[in-house]
Each structure stands twice: as C-alpha cells, then as structure tokens.
C-alpha cells in the first residue's frame, strides 16, 4: 500500500464518523412513527403524508377504540370506554404526544423526528 493510500483510508475513516453520529443520534430521529400499545402487545407503524387509514382496535373484553390516521396526525375517532378521554384528546401530530385510554389499556404515541418532544408533563 502506498503512503497516499494510507492517507485516503484514514481520511475516509475520519469522514465516516459524522455520518454515523448523525444516523445514530439518540433519542431516535428521522421519520415519524406511530406506536400502538395495548396491554403487552405493541405495534410500530410509519406515518407518512398523504396516507390515511382507520382501524378498529378491540381489547378482547368488548371494548373498542377506532384509531384514525390522517397523514402525520392521529386521533381516536370513536370508543366505547366510559370516560371518552381518548376521544376528547383530539388530534395529535408531534413526537412525544400520547393518547391514552386507561379503561382499554391502550396507548397511541407519536415517535421520532428531530426537534420533537421527549415527553409531555401533564
């Protein structure tokens, strides 16, 4: 290996660090994700502009929540829990925001993206 080759290799090695640091910065950044947690099961889905869908989530004991995703915002549109706090929460669209339905043990949370929130005090 020539001396120049060594210099090039060292340069490439040094240059790869910022690249990796950006990719591995934590807490995780990048695209928005949706986490749906019910009891012990968990589902992670990407959130993308222009993609909308609705899903009915059953808790196995007759309880249900209707999850509506409209691009990068999410809400519980309908539910049969007694307090309806999950429906009252309305749309959430920022990382760190959460919708909780205590009676049905359901958690819907937006994750990811730089500049978002790590958590919400309430």
């Amino acid at each position, binding site marked *: 290996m020539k001396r*120049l*080759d060594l210099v090039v290799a060292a340069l*490439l090695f040094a240059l*790869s660090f910022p690249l990796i640091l950006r990719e591995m910065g934590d*807490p995780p950044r990048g695209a928005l994700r949706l986490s749906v947690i019910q009891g012990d099961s968990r589902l992670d889905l990407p959130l993308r502009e222009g993609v909308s869908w609705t899903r009915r989530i059953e808790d196995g004991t007759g309880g249900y929540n209707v999850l509506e995703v409209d691009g990068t915002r999410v809400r519980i549109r309908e539910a049969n829990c007694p307090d309806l706090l999950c429906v009252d929460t309305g749309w*959430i669209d920022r990382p760190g925001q959460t919708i909780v339905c205590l009676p049905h043990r359901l958690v819907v949370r937006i994750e990811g993206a730089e500049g978002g*929130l*790590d958590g919400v*005090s309430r």
Partner: protein
Amino acid sequence: MRPSALIAILALSIALSAALVRLERGGRVAERSFFAMNTLFSLRASGRGAEGALSAMEEEVRRLEAMLSARDPSSELSALSRAAPGPMRVSPELDEVLRAALEVANLSEGAFDPTVGVLTELWGIGTERARVPEEREIEEALRLVDRRGLRRVSEMTWTLGVRQKLDLGGIAKGYCGDRLLAMARSLGLRWALLDLGGNIVLHGSPGRPWRIGIQHPMRGRGGILGVLEVESGPMAVVTSGVYERFLEVDGKVYHHILDPKTGRPAEGKLASVTVVMPSSTMADALSTAFFVLGPERSRKLAREMGARTIWVLEDGTTMVDEELVGRFELTDKSLKVVVLR
C-alpha cells in the same frame, strides 16, 4: 488505489465507526410502557443493560404500588389507616414517603395533606362512583382531615387519628420517580426519560438538552402550552391541572385537586401549575400544594425549596419564573406571559 479498494475501505470504516459509537453510547435505546398506579408509565433509557434496567424498574413500580395504594385494601398504606390509632411499624419505603408527605404538609400549612383519604373517597373523582357530596357530608369528612393526626412516634413507627384515612395520591408517583432515578444512577444508565403518568423524571442527558412539552390546560390532551428545555437530569417536571381528572354535573366542572381546608376542589382561578426541581417526590407534592395555595402564597415556599414554576391562570395568563426564562418557549402565542421575579 483502485475504486473497489476505496469502496471496501469506506464500508469497513463505516462499520467500525458504527461499532465504536455504539460501544461509547452503551447500546441502543430501550423502551417499556405499562399500566400501574392507575396510569401509564413509559420508560425509555440508554446505556449498557438498559433493557434489564427497565424491567427491574417495572418490578420496583409494582412493588411500590402494592405498598402505597390507597385504593388497594391489601396495601401497607391501607393497613396503617385500618390500624389507626396504631402505633404501627412500617417499611422503610412507606416511612420515607410519610416523612416527605408530612414535611410538605407542614411547610404548606396543610395545603397538601396526606390525611385527605376520607375526603377523596367521598368525592370519588376519577372513579365510577364520583359524585358531588352534600354539605353535611363534606363537613363530617373535614373533621377527619388533619395532618396533626399523623405522627412518627419512634423509628419507622407511626400513629394516625381514629377513622382518619391516608391518601398518598399527591406524592406516591413522585416518590416512585426518585426510586427509579436512584436505580438509573446505580445501574450506570447513560440517560433515562421516565414518564410516570405525565410526571416527567430525567436522568442524564442524550447529548443535547431535553425538550419537555407542558400540557396546555385549555386544550385537549394533545395540546401543548410550551416547551421547556432541561440541560440534564436529575430533574423532575410535574404539572397539576384541572384537566386531568374531573367530574361534570349540571354543566359545572369539579376537578380532582381538593383543598383540604374547604373540602372542595381548590378555587384559585388557576388552570395549572408546573414544578421543575431535582427531587421528584417534592415536585409532585409541591405541585398539589401550589395549586391549592395559588401563585402569591406559594412564592416563599417555592424559593425555599428551590422549585421553579410555570403557572397558567384560567384567563390564559402564563406566569414563568425568571430562572426559567430562556429555557421555556411558549408555543401558544395567543397567551399573555408574565415573568415572576
């Protein structure tokens, strides 16, 4: 150098750098969410063994819940209420919470009071049997709300007034936060973000300031009032507000923060108060006490305890401690901001 060799070196460099960065950062981010203490716990941490640490933390939360719950008749706390007037010897954990609770009760001259058990049970706000009690019932319950009935008579031994009932709802989650913080420290986690049903407790930092949203008291649960930046933990950010649990009867809203003096939901033209300080236990109890006392009467105690505060009045006026100016950014620009000096 041939192009193929260049590509090979680049690929190797990236892999090696990734491995080094991962090693330095102590592994990936671990997450765990579960329901306990009648709310949602969301724990997130980074550092070697973070997965195991969060699992141990969940176990610790369940153990503390079994000890400190006022609703569970088999808890140690319920046993102490039943044993009144006692005396009863308690566990070191219950002893520690009771001492902290009594300290805040005395400092706040009863604005926070762990003997409100009979009263919270009477209103039942946040439960299925919530109702507005009659005046006579409130008066009767108020006779049993008195912090002087709770006394530490000797090492880990407590007495309580006859028929009095303890409720640590305003401090148990906070205490839990401090226990988890101590675990995060002793297990050597690089950072941990502990969300105990909305009480945010921070350990370390992820290499940049933490960004913590503060719930907007006039909007739904997703609404954000502003963002607080915290350089690094240990730090707790606890908010008490009228929006979290309430009862609505004939168009009138009764929130869950009861004034131990009047026996009714605290009335001080306040929508919420956020307390920022390193002790999670104190932040939790003080947020309740401050909500009952209001900004004027809380100022001296907040200074003495090193608690920073953000207040939102019913009319939307937001008051921010001058120490938090520059670290708190109001996102709802329609609100008027006043700096507390």
